[in-house]
């Protein structure tokens, strides 16, 4: 009965003003600048408004790039679905030795910065990759005949990075299914239905909503992907790459036009996703005993399924191993052998002793902290306002908070450049492009939806009557927030902040458009080392990045546990 929303007070009004300014200045206006730029007059005709940029890109490369983007994304969805659903099914239904470790390994791509994943793929299965060379030597054929590169290479990287979505969605749905609907499976079996019929008629239809959700997210992520086509795509045209190329060539209007068209596709899918999620799903938590109920399988089927799953999961951890091996490779020593043969700790020694070499690490950590701080402040305030208060424009604010989720990082970066390459009210009349601040700002905008969603749903599960109880005991706004709401929300904030921090540490997509030499983050330095053919140096940065990510994961789970125990 306590769905009573509060009116704004002076304090919450001030907060609302702050988050409204942020979302207008850094989310809405960049998108406007983008659209404006894409329709900029061409100087030839005297009109205020020109479709020249659109006409030009539609005539040249747009359709090719769009077809590739869509085709690759569809294939990525199919591949990710096969891998993710298969793993989820095996891990849910079978028990095998070391299951705990393997179920962690399955999640590795989640914590691996996309750029690191792509690079490790290059050195594994690229044209000069270790696996490729090994197989070529074994079979005696040239690597170029089967090396994964270009179109299918991108798909392979995507499947590796995105199957986790399917895995997570399917496992949580399977868990729910067997907890609350275990009897459904049993009922089907007891009615004489075979295993196949039970899977096809009962389990699959009930899992469909999760599959659709995961498909849409994977599709959006693939469309927005930049690192994979950039490093691994060869000459394959891809929409995000076209934006980048046009921007580098100084053709802002064309870059903006590409960005607008790509965003329309992505936002379309975002809206589709939200619409789909708002429909009711089959899975409901019901009362009653929860016992695990699974479909029985023959011993042979179990063995094959588990064996295949473990081999593939093992293969999936190869990229990490490859990167670690490569980080010990001496500069210029690995040329055409299958595996590198001279190893040295020199790459790490240089990294930690030369302040100049270490600078990108400091930069990335600093920028990740700044971005996380911004996101936590704006995200927590907004979810508090949206979930607990009523005011005009609430829906709009909520939408704005979700928009960056649907917009590719490349587009966000171009939008920020176009808004802040001149003095603006939102940059205190200074030019942000080229400074330190534009990078954490871009990271913050890109990651805001993650924290906003986790905090808002955490807050929705905090019973408002707790706050009311505190009110009747004499407690006022800020104290209630500090003593009651915040402690209860803490773990959702920490887990959201962790993701933001990890994503910002290895961010590449918008960094590549926004960095300057003094503010270059790790990801950019990795790229420059690659360009210098210093594989070992690049891999050392990648390894350090993975260590930092693991440290962040460790620290955040410590924090969560410490506050729980308190």
């Amino acid at each position: 009965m306590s769905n009573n929303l509060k009116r704004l007070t002076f304090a919450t009004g001030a907060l609302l003003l702050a988050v409204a300014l942020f979302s207008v200045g850094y989310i809405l206006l960049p998108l406007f600048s983008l659209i404006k730029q894409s329709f900029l007059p061409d100087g030839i005709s005297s009109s205020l408004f020109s479709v020249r940029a659109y006409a030009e890109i539609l005539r040249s490369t747009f359709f090719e790039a769009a077809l590739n983007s869509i085709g690759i994304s569809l294939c990525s969805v199919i591949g990710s679905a096969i891998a993710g659903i298969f793993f989820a099914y095996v891990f849910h239904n079978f028990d095998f030795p070391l299951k705990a470790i393997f179920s962690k390994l399955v999640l590795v791509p989640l914590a691996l910065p996309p750029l690191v994943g792509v690079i490790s793929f290059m050195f594994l299965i690229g044209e000069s990759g270790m696996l490729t060379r090994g197989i070529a030597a074994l079979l005696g054929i040239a690597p170029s005949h089967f090396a994964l590169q270009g179109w299918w290479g991108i798909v392979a990287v995507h499947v590796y990075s995105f199957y986790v979505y399917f895995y997570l969605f399917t496992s949580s749905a399977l868990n729910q299914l067997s907890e609350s609907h275990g009897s459904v499976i049993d009922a089907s079996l007891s009615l004489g239905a075979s295993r196949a019929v039970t899977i096809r008629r009962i389990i699959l239809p009930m899992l469909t909503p999760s599959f659709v959700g995961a498909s849409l997210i994977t599709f959006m992520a693939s469309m927005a992907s930049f690192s994979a086509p950039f490093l691994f795509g060869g000459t394959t045209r891809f929409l995000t790459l076209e934006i980048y190329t046009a921007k580098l060539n100084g053709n802002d209007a064309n870059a903006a036009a590409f960005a607008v068209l790509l965003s329309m596709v992505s936002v379309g899918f975002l809206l589709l996703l939200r619409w789909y999620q708002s429909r009711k799903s089959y899975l409901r938590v019901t009362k009653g005993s929860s016992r695990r109920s699974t479909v029985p399988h023959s011993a042979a089927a179990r063995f094959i399924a588990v064996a295949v799953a473990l081999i593939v999961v093992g293969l999936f951890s190869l990229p990490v191993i490859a990167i670690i091996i490569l980080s010990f490779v001496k500069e210029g020593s690995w040329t055409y052998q299958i595996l590198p043969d001279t190893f040295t700790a020199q790459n790490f020694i240089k990294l930690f002793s030369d302040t100049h070499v270490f600078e990108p690490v400091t930069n990335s950590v600093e920028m990740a902290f700044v971005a996380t701080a911004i996101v936590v402040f704006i995200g927590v305030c907004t979810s508090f306002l949206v979930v607990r208060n009523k005011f005009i424009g609430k829906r709009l604010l909520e939408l704005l908070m979700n928009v960056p989720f649907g917009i590719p990082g490349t587009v966000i970066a171009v939008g920020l450049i176009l808004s802040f390459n001149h003095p603006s009210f939102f940059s205190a009349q200074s030019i942000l492009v080229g400074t330190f601040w534009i990078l954490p700002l871009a990271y913050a905008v890109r990651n805001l939806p993650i924290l906003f969603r986790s905090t808002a749903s955490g807050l929705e599960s905090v019973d408002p009557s707790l706050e009311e109880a505190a009110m009747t005991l004499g407690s006022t706004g800020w104290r209630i927030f500090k003593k009651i709401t915040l402690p209860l929300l803490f773990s959702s904030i920490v887990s959201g902040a962790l993701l933001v921090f990890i994503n910002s540490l290895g961010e590449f997509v918008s960094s590549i458009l926004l960095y300057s030499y003094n503010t270059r983050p790790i990801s950019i330095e990795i790229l420059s080392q690659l360009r210098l053919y210093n594989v070992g140096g690049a891999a050392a940065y990648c390894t350090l990045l993975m260590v930092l990510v693991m440290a962040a994961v460790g620290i955040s789970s410590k924090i969560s546990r410490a506050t729980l125990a308190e």
Partner: protein
Amino acid sequence: MADLSLRNISKSFGKVQAVAPLNLEIHSGEFFSLLGPSGCGKTTLLRIVAGLEQPATGSLFLNQKDITALPPQKRNIGLVFQNYALFPHMTVFQNVAYGLEVLNRTKAEIRTKVISVLEKVQLDGKQSVAVPNLSGGEQQRVALARALVVEPQVLLFDEPLSNLDYALRLETRSVIRRLQKETGITNIYVTHDQSEALAISDRIAVMNSGAIQQIGTPQELYFSPANRFVASFIGHANFFSAEICRSCFGIQAIGENEVLVVLPEEISIERQMESTSKVESISTLPSDGKANGKIIDVQFSGAVVEYVIDFFHQRITATCSSAKHSGDLQIGSEVAVSLSGKNNRKVSREQ
């Protein structure tokens, strides 16, 4: 300690009128209950008193002082929630101490006060338990202690016992009643359970669809209900039309627009051995004060037995003490129905 007066208070949510304009005077030190069916506006009224909801019209006076505009923090009115609303991240001690910390009391004072109130609700020794680990009854008593410890002028309860089992309900109910008598705090107690309200209240207001139907002591409500709703809600009374009263029971003093209120225990029934020809119409009945019915259900519930009787196409209920229950009163038995008691309560026909 504190008297509370509600003048012309009302509240609507969109088109739903949760509370119709009403007046209520609650005396100092009184145990006052709001009783009514689900959705009748009890919680809304309670939340208005606590300050968690603003009334659409009217004003609220605490000790003759207008508190309508005061926020909940400034009212010094405690509230015990139906779902307890205990802070899940705190221990029992921290929950109870919270309100005192807000008042900036010293550590030593907080300690003594918390410990003494926990003793009162029989929770001494549980200070450092995390609240999610407590049983339902214990959680309810923590909620009570948390509200009591700040010594509010008025204490509000919103169906505080509805999540407890029967035995715990009786036990916690007597704890609440005893504490109220000891402290003299004015209590407003919301419930939809009429037997609970009758048992613990000094006075009760019966509500239906946002309006107060009657205010009175438990005895007044039970024995002289103001209208049909109160009579059926409080006593599960039977209603007999003027025609039945005259023809069957020989009662003449009743108007056409009135019905006679007869409590189940005021109906006596007797097995009718010789099977008389069934009288279908009331008008053809001899007016000897006895009439025929047929038992359609018998429910034994310990102390009393309840009979549901088909009486001239109307379902009526009669109860008698189990000791008097005789084996020949079975489903399907023909019985003679008669009235005992004074039978002078009449209310308007309208619902």
